[in-house]
């Protein structure tokens, strides 16, 4: 198991290198440059700026410079957010995105998981149909619709919660973004959980467990749940990495200083160092959470555990 983890982490380094390299050259292959939006600059001024950021050097040299700095955690200065290094921008934004994203995932897991379990145990009942109907609504309702409506209702009309803003992560400011982000995920998780449960509830071993007079809670939590969680784990791996990007719309609507906007703005502005910074962080998250999800499979299923040698 430890060997397996170490091997996977070993593979992660070349993977990351390939991603970073591809991102670097693809970014440069795109037409336009970081200073195109500036008002008509004198050619000499532009040349000076480009030289200041090493953009006048051959591409391979730039790539080498970038790599040698990146391994030390230095992604260079942002070309658009002046006076900020990329590392600083990420250090400010990432905790915000992670706080909101993780809380939302947690809420979604608890509510969606419970909802899915209950719906499966009461399959085809009114409760099941109601829960799954709500889940469909949740999936169909995008955050850019639900978020403004909630802000309007709870913020402006009832005046219970702040309409927007980060306020150093005050609990009241977190509620609406977390709920807006969690809603569609509750729905997805509830449906995955219900499907997984129904599949397992039909198994012979569940019938034999019941034939032994075990309490329903033991049957559900000890015999059914470990196998029923498998589809959910497959979803959660990549979805957890999405904490960074998935919150873009919610961060914009609630005016949170997260990293979501850097993905879009960085790419549109050709802010090369910023894009490289977020790509590296995102790729690391993807690799890490996929590994975690594979390890979770192993924790749930002894057969998988055995195959990880």
């Amino acid at each position: 198991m430890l060997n397996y983890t170490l091997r996977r982490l070993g593979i992660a380094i070349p993977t990351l290198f390939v991603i970073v390299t591809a991102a670097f050259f693809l970014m440069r292959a795109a037409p336009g440059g970081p200073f195109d939006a500036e008002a008509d600059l004198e050619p000499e001024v532009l040349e000076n700026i480009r030289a200041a950021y090493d953009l006048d050097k051959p591409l391979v040299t730039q790539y080498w410079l970038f790599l040698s700095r990146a391994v030390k955690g230095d992604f260079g200065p942002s070309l658009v957010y002046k006076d900020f290094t990329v590392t600083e921008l990420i250090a400010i934004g990432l905790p915000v995105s992670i706080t909101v994203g993780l809380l939302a995932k947690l809420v979604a897991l608890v509510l969606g998981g419970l909802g899915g379990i209950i719906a499966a145990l009461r399959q085809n009942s009114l409760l099941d149909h109601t829960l799954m109907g709500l889940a469909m609504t949740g999936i169909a309702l995008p955050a850019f619709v639900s978020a403004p409506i909630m802000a309007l209702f709870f913020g402006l009309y009832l005046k219970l919660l702040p309409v927007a803003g980060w306020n150093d992560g005050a609990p009241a400011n977190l509620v609406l973004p977390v709920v807006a982000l969690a809603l569609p995920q509750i729905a997805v998780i509830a449906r995955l959980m219900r499907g997984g449960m129904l599949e397992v509830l039909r198994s012979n071993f569940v019938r034999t467990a019941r034939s032994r007079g075990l309490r329903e809670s033991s049957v559900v939590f000890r015999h059914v749940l470990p196998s029923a969680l498998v589809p959910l784990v497959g979803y959660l791996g990549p979805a957890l990495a999405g904490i960074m990007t998935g919150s873009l719309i919610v961060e914009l609507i609630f005016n949170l200083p997260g990293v979501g906007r850097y993905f879009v703005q960085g790419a549109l502005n050709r802010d090369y160092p910023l894009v490289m910074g977020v790509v590296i962080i995102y790729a690391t998250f993807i690799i890490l959470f996929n590994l975690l999800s594979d390890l979770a499979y192993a924790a749930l299923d002894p057969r998988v555990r055995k195959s990880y040698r």
Partner: protein
Amino acid sequence: MAAVIECQGLNVRFRTDDGAVTAVSDLDFSLNPGECLGVVGESGSGKSQTFLAMFGLLAPNGSATGSIRYRGTELLNAPRGALDELRGNRLAMIFQDALSGLTPTMRVGEQMAEVLVRHQGLTRQQARARVIEALEVVRIADPERRYAAYPFEMSGGMRQRVMIAMATLCRPEVLVADEPTTALDVTVQAQVLRLLDGLKRHTGTSLVLITHDLGVVAGLCDRVLIMYAGRAVELGPVRDIFRRPAHPYTRALLRSMPGLGIDPAEDLPVIPGQPPDLEHLPPGCAFASRCAHVVETCRVTRPALLAVGADHARACHLPA
């Protein structure tokens, strides 16, 4: 001698998209203390559903009416809590498919210990000792190590022996074995049957053996219940049934038993026709359409299960 299990007027029905299917109709039988009752019939004869109903394990679209009592306590449609006190404890069942009967994500020993913790209030540690003992009884080598094994690490025969050990942990009064050897190869079958026989002899457990193998019945059982299309067609002591089968279906079954020195393709008589559609059972005898001796009454009136000898009954209109 009061019966341990008393089944009266049992009906099991399933709702399907095409209408109601009757799996068991108007079934009466009893199980005496310490006896082994063989329940024989082909697939779809209702033998498994009868006992699934007794254990409250019918599929969600199934329902049972009538009565199955354990020492006077009604089991049919009993509340879950009351049923859970009995099943796995006083009443135990071994299922046909040993390969998929154990929870794949739990250690075998822990699944067994769970039963003792539930029904006898033992601690995990006390339960562990009892489980290891029980694994020894069913001749699982190195039980200490096997306690921590997962089902996929065991062979089919081993898993079936684990199922037997698990079913008998609480020394049940009634053990229902539903085709316990079907999924196993022949050498393992013999081991499992010996184990069940020993159990019956040493513990006084009443055994119900659901099977379609008449050879197994002859070797192990005291009485036999022959079922056809959800009905009892003949019930009696093994010796009487084998020597003087009183129902044409039983006779046909016995004739179609393969013996040594017979080329099955050549000589084995088959029962012509198919069992009736359980959605549209005929008004008369369910076997009428396949019976060589059928008379007019058979197609019109359903025969009752009537005595033809001491403790021996059959459901047939023909003269005995």
